């Protein structure tokens, strides 16, 4: 019997403590627009349907538990910087990604969400990308890192996520539906970006900054990755 998720083409957006609020919110907003007149439905999933921290002072409560959405049509993993690295040690989350990936026809990550896909072993022998500041670290995990705003390999779409997931999800909509649908949603959320001081020059992204950040969080990461010494060792080389 096909489950409700299949009939409705559920897109599961994965949450974890400390995730980037905008990655979650922008992704869900764009997907909700897609849900109009289609059978795609987005749902946020988490370990528990209890309050978790975001990377802002506002806490969030995901809609469903992982086990309530066992076979989504697609998976989206938001970023969270260091919080993503810590979440690599969360067995329940990593197990969910491994399990849900079997039935998912598309697997996407925003920014450092790709670290969770890597921790689940889903990026082995695949080309993938991440937030430019974390490129070096993703390589340390053995992923074939490709520089770019988005990289597609099979059913995997990993993105740099440098617009809080907006660009990523518009691309996803174009793949699932059409470019016209993506443009319509873009108009609805008035996404015509005009950063007052222009974009960012990623050429300036300095590796030293990342090494320093990593050192600052060494204790937290050691604790968070206690069950995954393999990952901890690779990160700290």
């Amino acid at each position, binding site marked *: 019997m096909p489950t409700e998720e299949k009939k409705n083409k559920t897109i599961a957006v994965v949450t974890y403590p400390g995730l980037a609020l905008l990655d979650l919110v922008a992704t869900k907003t764009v997907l909700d627009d897609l849900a109009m007149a289609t059978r795609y439905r987005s*749902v946020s999933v988490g370990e528990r349907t209890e309050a978790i921290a975001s990377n802002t002072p506002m806490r969030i409560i995901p809609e469903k538990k992982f086990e309530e959405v066992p076979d989504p049509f697609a998976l989206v993993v938001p970023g969270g910087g260091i919080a993503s690295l810590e979440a690599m040690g969360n067995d329940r989350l990593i197990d969910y990604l491994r399990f849900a990936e079997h039935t998912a026809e598309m697997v996407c990550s925003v920014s450092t969400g790709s670290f969770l896909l890597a921790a689940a072993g889903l990026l082995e022998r695949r080309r993938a990308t991440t937030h430019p500041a974390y490129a070096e670290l993703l390589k340390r995990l053995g992923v074939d890192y490709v520089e770019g705003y988005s990289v597609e390999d099979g059913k995997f779409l990993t993105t740099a996520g440098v*617009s809080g997931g907006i660009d990523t999800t518009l691309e996803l909509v174009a793949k699932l539906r059409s470019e016209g649908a993506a443009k319509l949603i873009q108009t609805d*959320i*008035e996404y015509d970006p005009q950063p007052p*001081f222009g974009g960012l020059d990623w050429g300036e992204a300095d590796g030293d900054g990342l090494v320093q950040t990593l050192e600052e969080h060494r204790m937290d990461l050691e604790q968070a990755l206690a069950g995954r010494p393999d990952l901890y060792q690779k990160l700290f080389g």
Partner: protein
Amino acid sequence: MAAEEQGEQKTIAFVLYPGLTVFDLAGPLQIFTGLSELVPEYRTVVVAERVEPTDTDIRVKMIPTHSFEEVPNPYVLLVPGGGVPTLRAMSNEPIRNYVRSAAETAEVPGSICTGALILASVGLLEGRQATTHWAYHKVLEQFGAKYVRKRWVEDGKFICSAGVSAGIDMALALAARLTDEETARRVQRSLGYDPHPPFGGIDYDHLGALAGTVRAGLSLAAPVIAARPKQLTRQNR
């Protein structure tokens, strides 16, 4: 006690209310959370009638950090928008009272998207230049504001952004006004905001053809839900 907790800090307060478009809030919240981390002189909070899980348009519940009473005099007050729930909020007394009194003492009161309608509904935008989501510009004008189609518009101490994602650009401009361009750029870098819409920008000259978007559809109902704008702006003055 609230004053004691605030100390010398300047508070940037976002208003949260049931059913709002949480994207309006999430973008600028990321910017000002980043600013607070770099410049401890500022603290960023999310205020609501009660500190409890609050429903949002994307069904992910969000938990504010403070109640209205706990933050009576924020330095910056930002009101996010939404669809029908925003039109309802315009006649909700606790929200109206808080917005009116906090905007009065705030150094910078402002709005994102249709949040401008809430400011306008308590009479704060009469005769002022302002902006809102493109589909709602006529509703804004009914409240006596002069609609300007720009990414964000400043008039006196007020600042308003266009729809949804425009709040991010406005927040960066405001961050620069509160501090300096260099600091705003550092915030942008720490967030990695470098938007690249995969299918280009918005063609504002042909919006008529795009009237089928979600927010455009809802805006048609606005005059019915937010009836008698003149009465609303005069209520409880």
